[in-house]
C-alpha cells in the first residue's frame, strides 16, 4: 500500500464534498469516474469497492457532523455567560472575540463597542479562558447582501457560530474574571501575552508583521499593506505556512543536536513541541497541515518506517477532514494541500535540474501555476507580477526577516535595549518593502481581473495542468500542448464577460446610498451610476478602526471584479453627496475608468472638490453635463434630463443627473436624489415622458417620488435603494403608498439586498439577493 494512501484522501475529499456542497450530483458523477479510472489503473475491482466504501463512510460522517452544528439559542437572549476562547481583537473602539457558552456546547461571536478610551486597556488584558457575563443584544450574523459576495453567515457557520452578540461598553453590564483553566487555554494565554508583548515592544510598522509571523494573528496589519499583499499574491507569506514550520522545526532540531541530544531523542521532543507550536501559532489550516505532516515524518524517522511523502500528505489531509469536514471549503486549506501535493509530486522534475537556483525558480513557478485556478476561483483576480515578487520576497522573508523576528522577539525578553536597536533597523527595512508593495499595488500591479469562475472551469484547468505536468515529467513534447490548453482556458475565463450577450442592470446594495451598474450586451459599454458611501461621524483618533466602512472597497469593486469587468466606460456621479460619490474613490483608483460625468453646477463642497481633483490626478477625464446631452450605443439610447442648462441654484439634490435610458424597448429613469421641484419640472418640460422602471429618487424619502410625477411617468416597477434599518427611516411610508396606489411593483435594497435585472433572449428577468 505504500505510496497508494492518496486513495484514502481522494475518497475522503469526495465524501465531504458530496455531503456538504450544493453540487452533489456533479460531484458524484465526477467521483465515480475518478474511481473507475483508479480501479482501471490498479487493474483491481476491489479498489473501486474500497473507494466507494470509504467515500460513503466519510459522507455519512460529514452529514452527521454538519447535523450537529446547530444552535440551541433563541433571539430572545440578552445576557450570556461563558469563556473567552481566543485572543480578543482590538480595532479602534471595537473589540471582538468568541465566547464559549457554559452549559451549552455553543460559541457566539461577541462584539463590543468601547465608549471610553480608558476601558480599552482592560479589554487588551482580557485573557483567553476568562469567564465573562455580558449583557447585550443577540443577532443572527449578516447574510451576503450582494451577488458573488463574501457570506459572513456561512463563514461563522463553519466555525460553529450562529449568533453575533453586541455589547456597548457602559450601556450594558459586563464582568470578566480570569480563571485557571485547561492546557489549551493555558497555551492560548501564552499566545495572548506574546501578541500583547509585540504590541508593547515592537515598532508600529513591524507589529502586524511580527504578530502574523509568530502567532498567525493578522488583524494588526495596516489595511493598505494587507490589500497589497493580497492582490499581489504574496499574502501566503503572512500566513504561517509549511515553509515557516519547516524553518522553525529545522532550526529547533539543529539546536537540539548541537546540545548533544541524539537524533532520535530530538525527533521525539520535536513531535511534542510542534503541536504546541501549532496552537501558539493560531492553528490555521496551513499550520495544522504542516505540523501534522512534520509529525508523521518525525514519527517514521524515529521508528524507522519508510514514509512515502504522498502518504504523509494524504494522512494529514484525511485526519484534518475527519476532525473538521468544513475545512475542505477553506481557501487556506485548499491552497496549502494543492501546493504541497504539487511540490511533492514534482520531485522527479526538480531532480533533473542541475542547480539550486533553477530548482528554486521551478518551485516558485510550479506553486504559481498550480494555485492559479484556486486563486481565480476565490479572489477573481490574479497578479502577473506575483511570480517575480515571490521569487524575490520568499527568500527575503524566510532567510532574513522570519529568523530576525524570532530572535528579536526572544531578545526583547532578555534585553529590551539591544533588541530595540535591531528592531529600529528592521522596521526601516520593512517600511521600504511595504512602501514598494503599496506603490506597485496602486499602480495597477499587473492585476488581471478574471471574474467569478465556474466549478467546471476549475476542474478543466486542474485537469490540463496535471496533464501538462505529467507529460513534462516524461519529457514529452505534448506537454507544451497541454500547457497551451491551460493558457487557453485562462484566456477564455478572461474573455467571458465579453462573450455574455445579456444586458444587465444591477442595483448594488451599498447600504444607505445608491450604486447602479449597467452592462450592455458583450460589454459594449459598462456604466456605473454612483458608488455609495458611508457618512461617518467625527471620531477621536483612538476610535478609528483600521478600515473605515467603505462600500466602494467592500462591495462595489468586489462585485465589478466578480463579473470580470476591467473597464468602465462612464462613471456617473449624480451629485455631490457623500453617499453617492464616497465609494467611487476606490472604484476610480482600482478600475480603468474612461470618463466621469458630473452635473454642470457650481462645486461648493470641499469634499467633492478633493474627489474630482483625485479623479483628474488618476488621469481620468471629467465631463460636466446638463440637460439635452445624449448618446447611443447600438440600439440603446441614453439622454440626460437634468440638471437644467442654467442652474436655478436649488439644492444639490435637485441638480442630480437624471438619465432616461431606453434599452431593448424598456425605458428606465435614474433620478439620483431628485426631489419634488425637479420632478415637477420634468413633468412640465417632458409631457411625453413615460418610464417602465423608475429608480425612486432620494432613497424613497418623502420629498421625492411624488404622486403627480408617478402618475405622469406611469412606471411598472420602482426600485428603492436604501440601507437596511437606516437612520432616516427611508423609504417613507407615503412613498410606498403612492407607488402602491399606482400599482407599481416595488423592489427595495434594504429588504431584498442587491437587485438585478437582465435581458436574455427577448425576455426580461429579475433576481434579488434575498428573497422575502
Amino acid at each position: 500500500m505504500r505510496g497508494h494512501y492518496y486513495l484514502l484522501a481522494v475518497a475522503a475529499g469526495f465524501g465531504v464534498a458530496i455531503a456538504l456542497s450544493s453540487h452533489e450530483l456533479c460531484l458524484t458523477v465526477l467521483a465515480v469516474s475518478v474511481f473507475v479510472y483508479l480501479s482501471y489503473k490498479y487493474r483491481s475491482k476491489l479498489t473501486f469497492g474500497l473507494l466507494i466504501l470509504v467515500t460513503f463512510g466519510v459522507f455519512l460522517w460529514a452529514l452527521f457532523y454538519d447535523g450537529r452544528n446547530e444552535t440551541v439559542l433563541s433571539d430572545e437572549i440578552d445576557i450570556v455567560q461563558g469563556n473567552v476562547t481566543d485572543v480578543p481583537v482590538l480595532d479602534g473602539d471595537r473589540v471582538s472575540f468568541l465566547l464559549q457558552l457554559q452549559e451549552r456546547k455553543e460559541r457566539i461571536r461577541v462584539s463590543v463597542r468601547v465608549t471610553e478610551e480608558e476601558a480599552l486597556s482592560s479589554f487588551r488584558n482580557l485573557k483567553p479562558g476568562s469567564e465573562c457575563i455580558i449583557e447585550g443584544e443577540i443577532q443572527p450574523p449578516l447574510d451576503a447582501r450582494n451577488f458573488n459576495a463574501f457570506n459572513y453567515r456561512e463563514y461563522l457557520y463553519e466555525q460553529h457560530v450562529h449568533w453575533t452578540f453586541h455589547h456597548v461598553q457602559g450601556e450594558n453590564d459586563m464582568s470578566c474574571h480570569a480563571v485557571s483553566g485547561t492546557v489549551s487555554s493555558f497555551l492560548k494565554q501564552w499566545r495572548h501575552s506574546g501578541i500583547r508583548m509585540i504590541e508593547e515592544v515592537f515598532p508600529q510598522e513591524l507589529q502586524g508583521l511580527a504578530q502574523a509571523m509568530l502567532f498567525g494573528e493578522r488583524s494588526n496589519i495596516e489595511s493598505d499593506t494587507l490589500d497589497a499583499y493580497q492582490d499581489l499574491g504574496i499574502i501566503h507569506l503572512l500566513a504561517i505556512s509549511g515553509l515557516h514550520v519547516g524553518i522553525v522545526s529545522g532550526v529547533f532540531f539543529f539546536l537540539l543536536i548541537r546540545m548533544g541530544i541524539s537524533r532520535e531523542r530530538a525527533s521525539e521532543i520535536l513531535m511534542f513541541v510542534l503541536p504546541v507550536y501549532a496552537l501558539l501559532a493560531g492553528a490555521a489550516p496551513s499550520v495544522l497541515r504542516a505540523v501534522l505532516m512534520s509529525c508523521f515524518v518525525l514519527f517514521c524517522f524515529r521508528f524507522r518506517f519508510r514514509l512515502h511523502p504522498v502518504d504523509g500528505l494524504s494522512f494529514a489531509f484525511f485526519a484534518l477532514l475527519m476532525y473538521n469536514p468544513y475545512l475542505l471549503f477553506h481557501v487556506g486549506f485548499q491552497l496549502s494541500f494543492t501546493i504541497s501535493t504539487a511540490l511533492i509530486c514534482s520531485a522527479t522534475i526538480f531532480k533533473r535540474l542541475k542547480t539550486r537556483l533553477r530548482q528554486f525558480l521551478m518551485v516558485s513557478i510550479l506553486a504559481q501555476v498550480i494555485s492559479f485556478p484556486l486563486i481565480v476561483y476565490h479572489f477573481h483576480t490574479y497578479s502577473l507580477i506575483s511570480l517575480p515578487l515571490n521569487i524575490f520576497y520568499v527568500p527575503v522573508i524566510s532567510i532574513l526577516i522570519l529568523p530576525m523576528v524570532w530572535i528579536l522577539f526572544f531578545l526583547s525578553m532578555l534585553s529590551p535595549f539591544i533588541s530595540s536597536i535591531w528592531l529600529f533597523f528592521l522596521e526601516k527595512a520593512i517600511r521600504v518593502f511595504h512602501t514598494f508593495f503599496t506603490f506597485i499595488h496602486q499602480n495597477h500591479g499587473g492585476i488581471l481581473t478574471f471574474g467569478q469562475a465556474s466549478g467546471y472551469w476549475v476542474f478543466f484547468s486542474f485537469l490540463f495542468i496535471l496533464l501538462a505536468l505529467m507529460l513534462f515529467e516524461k519529457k514529452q513534447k505534448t506537454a507544451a500542448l497541454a500547457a497551451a490548453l491551460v493558457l487557453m482556458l485562462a484566456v477564455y475565463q478572461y474573455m467571458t464577460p465579453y462573450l455574455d450577450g445579456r444586458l444587465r442592470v444591477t442595483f448594488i446594495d451599498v447600504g444607505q446610498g445608491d450604486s447602479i451598474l449597467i452592462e450592455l450586451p458583450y460589454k459594449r459599454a459598462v456604466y456605473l451610476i454612483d458608488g455609495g458611501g458611508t457618512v461617518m461621524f467625527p471620531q477621536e483618533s483612538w476610535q478609528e478602526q483600521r478600515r473605515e466602512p467603505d462600500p466602494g472597497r467592500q462591495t462595489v469593486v468586489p462585485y465589478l471584479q466578480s463579473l470580470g469587468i476591467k473597464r468602465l466606460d462612464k462613471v456617473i456621479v449624480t451629485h455631490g453627496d457623500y453617499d453617492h460619490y464616497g465609494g467611487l474613490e476606490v472604484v476610480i483608483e482600482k478600475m480603468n475608468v474612461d470618463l466621469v460625468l458630473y452635473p454642470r453646477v457650481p462645486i461648493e463642497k470641499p469634499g467633492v472638490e478633493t474627489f474630482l481633483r483625485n479623479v483628474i490626478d488618476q488621469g481620468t477625464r471629467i465631463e460636466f453635463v446638463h440637460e439635452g446631452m445624449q448618446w447611443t450605443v447600438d440600439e440603446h439610447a441614453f439622454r440626460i434630463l437634468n440638471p437644467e442648462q442654467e442652474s436655478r441654484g436649488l439644492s444639490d439634490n435637485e441638480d442630480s443627473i437624471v438619465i432616461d435610458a431606453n434599452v431593448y424597448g424598456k425605458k428606465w429613469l435614474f433620478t439620483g436624489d431628485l426631489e419634488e421641484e425637479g420632478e415637477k419640472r420634468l413633468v412640465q418640460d417632458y409631457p411625453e415622458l413615460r418610464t417602465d422602471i423608475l429608480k425612486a429618487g432620494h432613497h424613497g424619502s418623502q420629498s421625492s417620488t411624488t404622486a403627480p410625477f408617478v402618475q405622469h411617468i406611469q412606471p411598472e416597477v420602482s426600485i428603492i435603494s436604501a440601507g437596511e434599518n437606516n437612520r432616516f427611516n427611508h423609504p417613507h411610508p407615503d412613498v410606498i403608498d403612492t407607488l402602491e396606489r399606482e400599482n407599481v411593483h416595488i423592489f427595495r435594497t434594504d429588504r431584498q439586498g442587491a437587485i438585478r435585472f437582465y435581458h436574455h433572449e427577448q425576455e426580461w428577468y429579475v433576481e434579488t439577493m434575498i428573497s422575502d
Partner: protein
Amino acid sequence: MKQNYCLRCLEPLEGAQASWTALLSCEKKNLCESCSDKFHRLAPPWCLHCARPLSCTESCGDCERWAKTRHWSGLLTRNISLFSYNDFLQELISTYKYRGDIALAEVFKEPLRNFYQQYFTGTTPVPVPLSKERLQERGFNQAEVIAEFLPVSYKPLLVRDIHEKKQSKGSRQDRLRGHVRPFVFNNHTGPLTGQHILLIDDIYTTGTTLRKAALPLLENGAGRVSSLTIARS
C-alpha cells in the same frame, strides 16, 4: 495494490520519490527511475536501414556495403532496434536469456508495442527460431517471448535446422563468411502472398542472422522482410 518492485534491481518502485506519472498515469512501471535511466533509447536521426544512430537520417556505411554485395542485397528492408547495446543492456539481456529470468522481458513490452505501432503496423511478426538443441538447453525462445507482446499474434514460419556454434562468441568475419543456410521455410498453409514479414529477435549485431532468416521467406512469396530487435550493437 501489492507492492511493486523494480524488475532489475528489486528496489520497491513506490520508493521515497513521488512523481506525477506514478500518481496519475495508468502505465504499469516495472523499472525504477535509476534503472530506466540507464537505457540508451534509439530514436531518429538514425540509419534508415539498421537504426544505427547518425547525425542525420540516411543510410549508414555498413548498410551501403550490404547493398553492394551480391548475396545479401535487398534481403532486409529495414531493421529497427529499441536500445543501443551498452553494458547495462548486455547484463540485462544475458540475465534474461542465459539465466532464464524470463520476467525481465516485461521491461521491453511497452517500447516494443510502441515501435510496432509506429513503424510496422500491418506486418506479420515472425520470431527468429532456435535450433532444437538450443531450445532444449535454454528452455524457451527469447525471441518468441518478446514476439508475444506484440498486438498481433506471430506466425512460426521458420525452423532452424543447423545448430550453429554459439553466435555471441564468433567474430564479425566468422559470421559474415558463413554461407550456410540455417533457416528453412515451414508453413502448413503453403507459400506466402506478398506479405510484409517482421522478424523479431533480441540483438542486431551485423544483421547476418536476420538476412539469413529473410532469404527463405522471400523465396516463399514474402513481399518484404524487416526486423524489430531489442538491442543494436
